């Protein structure tokens, strides 16, 4: 099979607000850095793939507004309405066709510009059955968390520990908007949103832009001595219906991980050295770990308490700080998980560097009310 690698990237620092830059100026900054980082010129890029969701941008048919700031004027561009990891997978697949050697991928978040994000999320619910109830959409996470704790045996306190760990990890990551040193009690004493979910269980929005350059095997090594290879990818959607979906596990994560492991030739998920996974809500990290087979059902909480997912543990998880520590970036959330993997696999993660990191997994979920996610596996070959 053909191969594809990520050979360069550029990003802006996730921040709670970014009034100094328009989205175009923010994306331009990320693009310039990605071109500089890879030594690629915009004219060498054969295909540009962006992600955006009109309701998050506040402009319909937003894809019309992306070319200028990427150097993609009059070139092949398309936008997909999904997380950045889906765009990387699309770029990967374009390269596998053999028709493209250099593809650019862009993702961004101007979440601070959405004045009532809960309304956008609520508007994604089924308009006939769910929206008329006028519930704050985080109730969906409350429903899911309740069922997850019930069926897995993990505890409320263990979910709080996820927040403590990820916010602590973010303290060492300059690309994070919500680092903090907190205790389990802080989470348990924070306001109830939708029982058992509390305010601090939920990640908060941030703004940032991120651009990647992907290249075919043929030219990757001429661009960088250490390309980060895309070894496997999977994506999946479970039943959108809140009434009939499987609330016991994240089926979309299970099946997309299975697809990615198969493509990557991974027999045992234990081969993976580090994982950057969705933790939009505290319990999601535990649920996703179990669903992807990165630990056994019902064991994630205990392993967390034992330090298994810490920086020096057997499987460091969300060393970047995850969405809880670094910020929830809507469709750019997955992109920043890839940023962390690339820094780690390139041994450029500084004080966060995970020893012997060579095979990493990134996973993303598109948030409530969706049951959609993707997994990607990256490897550095020495």
């Amino acid at each position, binding site marked *: 099979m053909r191969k594809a690698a990520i050979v360069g990237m550029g990003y802006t620092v996730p921040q709670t607000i*970014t*009034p*100094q*830059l*328009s*989205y*175009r*100026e*923010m994306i*331009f900054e990320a693009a310039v850095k990605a*071109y500089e980082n890879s030594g690629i010129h*915009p004219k060498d890029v054969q295909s540009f793939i962006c992600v955006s969701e009109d*309701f998050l941008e*506040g402009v319909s048919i937003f894809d019309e507004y992306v*070319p*200028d*700031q990427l*150097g993609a*004027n009059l070139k092949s561009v398309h936008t997909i309405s999904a997380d950045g990891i889906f765009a990387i997978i699309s770029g990967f697949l374009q390269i596998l066709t053999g028709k493209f050697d250099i593809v650019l991928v862009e993702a961004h978040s*101007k979440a*601070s*510009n*959405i*004045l*009532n994000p809960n*309304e*956008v999320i609520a*508007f994604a619910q089924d*308009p*006939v059955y769910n*929206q*008329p109830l006028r519930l704050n959409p985080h109730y969906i996470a409350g429903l899911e968390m309740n069922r997850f704790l019930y069926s897995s045996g993990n505890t409320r306190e263990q979910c709080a520990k996820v927040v403590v760990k990820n916010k602590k990890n973010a303290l060492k990551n300059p690309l994070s908007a919500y680092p903090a040193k907190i205790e389990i009690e802080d989470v348990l004493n924070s306001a109830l949103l939708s029982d058992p979910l509390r305010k601090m269980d939920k990640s908060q929005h941030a703004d940032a832009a991120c651009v990647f350059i992907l290249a075919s095997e043929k030219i990757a090594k001429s661009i960088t001595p250490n390309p980060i290879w895309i070894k496997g990818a999977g994506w999946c959607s479970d039943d959108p219906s809140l009434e009939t979906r499987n609330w016991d596990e994240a089926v979309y994560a299970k099946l997309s991980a299975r697809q990615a492991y198969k493509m990557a030739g991974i027999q045992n998920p234990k081969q993976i050295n580090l994982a950057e996974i969705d933790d939009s809500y505290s319990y999601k990290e535990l649920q996703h770990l179990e669903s992807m087979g990165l630990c056994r059902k019902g064991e994630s909480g205990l392993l967390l308490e034992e330090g298994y997912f810490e920086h020096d543990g057997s499987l460091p998880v969300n060393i970047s700080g995850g969405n809880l520590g670094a910020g929830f970036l809507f469709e750019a959330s997955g992109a920043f998980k890839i940023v962390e993997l690339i820094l780690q696999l390139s041994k450029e993660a500084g004080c966060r560097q995970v020893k012997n990191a060579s095979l990493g997994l990134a996973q993303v979920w598109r948030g409530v009310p969706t049951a959609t996610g993707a997994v990607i596996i990256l490897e550095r070959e020495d």
Partner: protein
Amino acid sequence: MELKGIGLEEEIFKISKKSEKSMKMEFKGVSLKESDFKEKKILSLENKPNLKYAWDTGVAIGRFLAELKQGRLIGRKCCKCRRIMIPPRMFCEVCFKPNDEWIYLKDKGTVNTFSICYVSWDMQKLKEPQIPAVIEIEGASKMMGILHLLGEVEPKEVKIGMKVKAVWKEIDKREGAITDIKYFKPI
């Protein structure tokens, strides 16, 4: 947003029967009246999203709007391709590099294209038609300009290539928006 369910099954059945018989397959549809919805003869569900945004203007748009409030047009110059761009942006999309200088431009230009619009945005007939036009601003590069309305002119007098000038709102009524220019009028 509206979801419509049809409650007039019989009516539809009749029509589809008819079209089965005829050689031509015509789908005439069912005529519905406003009252059919009001009287709930047609099942429907209304839903209005409550979405609100406040876009960061950033450097380029922010300065452009601030200058409009002062009654001035400003553009940016790229020293590599020498283009002078309005509305301004902080990078040149052709050269793909940050551009270089702010340049004040005259508040007049030439009509590149125009149309005479006889319906309002929600398709109501207008008493006075509106005349949207693309105005190439004097001093800026070719194809650089402002989309605005033309005023103080009879629709039939408007021509491509016509010279026009901005008519500004009074200074205390300006708010840093494209509507600080009321319209462009012929010179």
